């Protein structure tokens, strides 16, 4: 998903869930910050780089693909952008290594989503926005894994887009992929940029939906393709329909986090709150346009809901507050709280992956069993998550 949905769409969802304009802005800022909080950004503000929620191109270019490097990549992408759907999925083929990769495939309504929402409970707008980003991406990034894997994430030439045709429903059009990172996608001609074919299991080109380009991120996209992991059977992805479900689930999750709906349950959607706006939302989601166009549509929808304008996302908005805060109160600032939420989410996901017997996200140490023996950046979590009873 892109800025339009993560920032402006989240703003609208927060309003529909009953948040004020100001609260909604704080939530949607955090939701989109997940796509911007790189190690480079954290290094600039003097924050802990372990809290990175994304990797920039240069960081990816220099990323190592040895087990430690792979774990670092997987921690970031699986925790925030490709939440694994089922860490204990039955895999009838391949060995342990294949099984571990297969179990990292992202999808909506997995147990880890419940953990993600529960983790954000009572932790403020930053944790809420972060959790909503993760939730939304489980729909957009479905069928891809947040770890480099040729055998899971590769695509082949059977990739067809369903394009609306006037009066005729849809026409199928083969998707053309190119590898020029500077050229924009050509939505009219159906030409999209993807990563280069690299038949190497751990190449970063095979991370997430790189081989399918940005197609999964476009709300209007409907496509059929043959995933590498699916025994030569194709899957159909209907983004407008799934993004609508994502939106309704976001409103539901927001109400749970506000304490209105009881504990978060999977496969539950607040269609009632969204129904009065269904036609408009579906029209935005289905419109074939670049992200800039979608931003304007979501912005207009948000304005119609709150009567207020949505200020544009600026990465530096909360930086002065963080930099000016004394060391002992940095955790109380907006960015400080976001960093804690990110560390908590990463720690939780890595723990679940590790506990399932899967080493791809690296080692997780249970504080309650062994005390604090990990990366020191995670130490503030002891207080943030309620203290625990680990051995010091």
């Amino acid at each position: 998903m892109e800025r339009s949905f993560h920032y402006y769409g989240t703003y609208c969802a927060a309003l529909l869930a009953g948040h004020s304009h100001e609260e909604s802005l704080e939530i949607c800022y955090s939701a989109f910050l997940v796509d911007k909080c790189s190690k480079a950004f954290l290094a600039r503000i003097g924050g802990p780089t372990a809290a990175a929620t994304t990797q920039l191109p240069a960081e990816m270019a220099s990323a190592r693909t040895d087990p430690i490097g792979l774990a670092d990549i997987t921690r970031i992408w699986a925790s925030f952008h490709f939440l694994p759907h089922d860490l204990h999925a039955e895999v009838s083929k391949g060995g342990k290594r294949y099984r571990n990769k297969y179990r990292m495939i992202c999808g909506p309504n997995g147990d880890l989503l419940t953990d993600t929402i529960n983790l954000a409970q009572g932790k403020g707008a930053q944790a809420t926005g972060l959790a909503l980003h993760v939730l939304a991406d489980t729909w957009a990034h479905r069928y891809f894994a947040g770890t480099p894997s040729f055998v899971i994430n590769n695509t082949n030439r059977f990739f067809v887009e369903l394009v609306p045709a006037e009066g005729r429903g849809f026409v199928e059009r083969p998707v053309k992929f190119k590898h020029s990172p500077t050229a924009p996608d050509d939505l009219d001609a159906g030409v999209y940029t993807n990563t280069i074919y690299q038949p190497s299991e751990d190449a970063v080109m095979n991370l997430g939906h790189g081989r399918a380009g940005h197609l999964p991120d476009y709300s209007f996209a409907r496509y059929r393709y043959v995933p590498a992991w699916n025994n030569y059977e194709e899957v159909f992805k209907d983004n407008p329909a799934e993004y609508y479900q994502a939106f309704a689930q976001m409103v539901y999750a927001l109400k749970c986090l506000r304490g209105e709906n009881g504990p978060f349950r999977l496969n539950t959607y607040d269609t009632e709150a969204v129904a009065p706006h269904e036609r408009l939302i579906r029209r935005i989601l289905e419109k074939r346009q670049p992200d800039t166009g979608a931003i304007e549509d979501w912005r207009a929808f948000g304005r119609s809901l709150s009567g207020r304008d949505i200020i544009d996302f600026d990465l530096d908005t909360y930086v002065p507050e963080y930099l000016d805060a004394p060391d002992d109160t940095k955790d109380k600032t907006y960015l400080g709280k976001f960093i804690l939420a990110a560390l908590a989410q990463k720690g939780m996901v890595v723990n679940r992956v590790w506990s399932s017997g899967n080493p791809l996200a690296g080692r997780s140490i249970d504080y309650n069993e062994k005390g604090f023996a990990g990366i020191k950046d995670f130490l503030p979590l002891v207080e943030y998550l309620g203290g625990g009873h680990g051995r010091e």
Partner: protein
Amino acid sequence: MANVILSLLMIVGGVALLLSPQEALFVVALALGFYFVAYGLHTLVYYLTMARHMTGGLTLLFIAVISIDIGSLVLAFSSKPHASLMLYLVGYNMFTGVLAIARARESKALESRWKASLARGIVNVALGVACLVFIGSDQIVTAIFCFGLFYNAGVRLARSLRPTEIIYIP
């Protein structure tokens, strides 16, 4: 940094080859043979344990078998390094040449830049043909191999010294 060191080693190797062709050729043939066999075995294990379960994974088996074949052939002829080197040069240049021409065609179809790729493909194919035509000449085969070494070292060096763009999909 690793690319810079490798580039410099390639240049040094090329110069050594030109100065002392017989001894250097033998070492090069051995190294090539072992490299291809090791790469092929690694790919074969990867195919058996992972890639055979994926769509299109059979390609990996072909790559593995071809690599092992080439490596074995090169090692079998390592006492006659000239023959090994010739085989490698013909195979490498023909393969990369055809690949570059195919890429040029693909790029042209997408109205992207294609001329440089086509030119590179034609040069590679021409070098492959030259190896076959001058099969009996040690000097020409050695010169073509050294040309390839210097060219690749130059490209590698240039690539390692400029910013690298890769596609990032958040």
